[in-house]
């Protein structure tokens, strides 16, 4: 009986996460690949699936048109892709710059308040992201709180245009993604032994030297994890730039949206998404592969 439970428990531990990944990651991905090779039509659903299980058994008749169309009009997709990658890159960079000192401070503060500080970091997640964006708009508007205060204090006479600028976009991005950067950074910094830092100081390293030669290299796993956590969703982000940005912000996420909703071309939307995933995932896989090579 006991043995049975032990065995059952082990199966559960292994298969639960695997099942989760299979159900919520693999199946949707496979379905998306399927749709990307399908032919669009006006019907319910609005495509003829490339891969079908029907009375005639399995049929697989992939259509390359969707990828060819993207290839043909590559310029229309390249610029939004560059916009998105630029947005994601700088959002990641700014998040890193803000998150690092915060994570450091939390990791080095009293153990008893660390949990409270971490909960405070996560707190914004408890409100809807849209609500937070509108709160930010309320702050940054020409008639918003910040301008009211600046005008009242006599620092400026006319309101400063903060909305529809890079400033407002990146404020929104940082507000949304900062916790995703802080948590892995915290996890890697809290593991950093104080005596290692003291050893460096003892050996003649000044503060900046300690950071450059000890803390920074040892927190690279946290930096990498946090950057991926921010960068990957940020590439697909288009709501924040649409709400806070000016007209120049056509993002790849929005292009997928228009393919899906405006052109009602689910297969092309799926194909773009697959290409995007490939562009993001392949370098990561390659980097990991390189890493493994180097270690062995």
């Amino acid at each position, binding site marked *: 009986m006991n043995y049975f439970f032990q065995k059952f428990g082990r199966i559960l531990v292994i298969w639960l996460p695997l099942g989760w990944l299979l159900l919520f990651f693999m199946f949707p991905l496979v379905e998306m690949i399927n749709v990307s090779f399908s032919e*669009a039509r*006006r*019907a*319910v*659903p*609005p495509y003829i699936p490339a891969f079908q299980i029907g009375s005639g058994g399995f049929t697989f008749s992939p259509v390359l048109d969707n990828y060819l169309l993207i290839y043909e*009009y590559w310029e*229309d997709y390249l*610029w*939004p892709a560059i*916009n998105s990658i630029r947005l994601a890159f700088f959002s990641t960079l700014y998040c890193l710059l803000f998150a690092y000192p915060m994570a450091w401070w939390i990791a080095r503060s009293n153990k008893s308040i660390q949990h409270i500080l*971490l909960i405070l970091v*996560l707190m914004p*997640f*408890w*409100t*809807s*992201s849209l609500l937070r964006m509108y709160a930010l708009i309320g702050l940054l*508007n*020409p*008639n918003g709180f910040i301008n009211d205060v600046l005008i009242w204090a006599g620092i400026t006479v006319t309101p400063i245009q903060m*909305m*529809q600028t890079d400033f407002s976009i990146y404020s929104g991005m940082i507000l949304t993604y900062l*916790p995703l950067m802080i*948590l892995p950074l*915290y*996890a890697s910094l*809290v*593991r950093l032994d104080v005596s290692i830092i003291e050893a460096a100081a003892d050996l003649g390293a000044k503060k900046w030297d300690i950071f450059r030669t000890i803390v920074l290299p040892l927190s690279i796993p946290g930096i990498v994890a946090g950057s991926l956590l921010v960068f990957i969703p940020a590439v697909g982000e288009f709501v924040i730039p*649409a*709400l806070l*940005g*000016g*007209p*120049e912000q*056509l993002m790849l996420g929005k*292009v997928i949206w*228009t*393919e*899906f*909703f*405006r*052109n*009602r*071309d689910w297969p092309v939307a799926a194909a773009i998404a697959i290409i995007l995933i490939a562009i993001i995932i392949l370098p990561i896989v390659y980097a990991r592969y390189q890493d493994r090579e180097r270690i062995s």
Partner: protein
Amino acid sequence: MERSNLFLLIGVIAAAVVIFLNFDSSNIKTSQVSEAGGELKIYNWSDYIAEDTISNFEAETGIIVTYDMYDSNEVLEAKMLAGSSGYDLVVPTADFLARGREAGAYQDMDLSRIQNASNQDPEIQAQADRMVGSNSAGLVYMWGSTGIAYNEDMVVERLGDDAPTDSWSLILDPANAAKLEDCGIAILDAPTDVLPNVMTYLGYPGTSMEKSHFEAAGDALSAIRPYLRYINSSQSINDIANGDICAAIMWSGDAFQAAYRAEEAENGHVIDYYIPNEGTNLWFDVMAIPADAKNVDNAYKFVDYMMRADVAAANVNYVWYASGNEAARPDIDPEILSHPGIYPTEKAKEKLFVTPVYDAQTDRIVTRVWNRFSAGN
């Protein structure tokens, strides 16, 4: 507990919270015990019905209504095309309804089952039917136009008393746009409502499906692009009401909502809306029944109820859109009835047009032109 485990736990909780919060709660509806009247699931635009209409209907019929809201045709359409939406009555705009019918997502509406259908304005209904391509697709709920909302004082201050507040040129002429840049210009993020109107401004027919006409419209928009604050459909209501922008291409109902908000706030901003004399496109929101609706009888009952003159008038007085209901006119607020931006004058009517339903290829052209304009390249 080891620290790394604690971190993992926090991460999982955070992820769960995020997923939970982002979950569209309108999808999870506890099934209510159906009483004698049964139930009815409605999916309508947000802020598009008088506050007590649903409760009155429930009281009268004993039908329990589940009322969900969307704020874009695209969202509704994706739900309909995916199938099994669970809704019994939805209110798509005519061109979306046409495409949905083509895909088999909607069923015909038997007007003989709706006594109050005779209250409908035949002219409006005929225009909508032409667009949808069927006489039995559904009944027009509200209709409206696309035009320009503007802040009177701010615009006059910059363009003088002879500002063209009756023409698309107020925004589409780069010389005017340049002068309004500092007080803020916004454009709807809705290519099918903007591009045809730019085409009429350029002298092309708004109903054209010529690629070159769309491209010319795209070029005209690109010329004013440097002066635009943003391209967005939902933000301009608030911003124009607060004086954060001063001119916007908007839908009529949104413009009046903004004017109302400015008035309520007593912030000194006076917002007005006009239908440009070059003409504009009309749109019709149609009550329609999805193909896989489960409570079809109740859907008919609801449409019949909505077509009652007093109910229709109450809705118009609340949302400030023009109703498809002719019989409701006596009960409609005269201020609404006499506003040329809501109920256009006979002269303006001559220039109004109904955009055709684009085929997939035209969709792609429109989207591409629009994306190039909004991307700025």
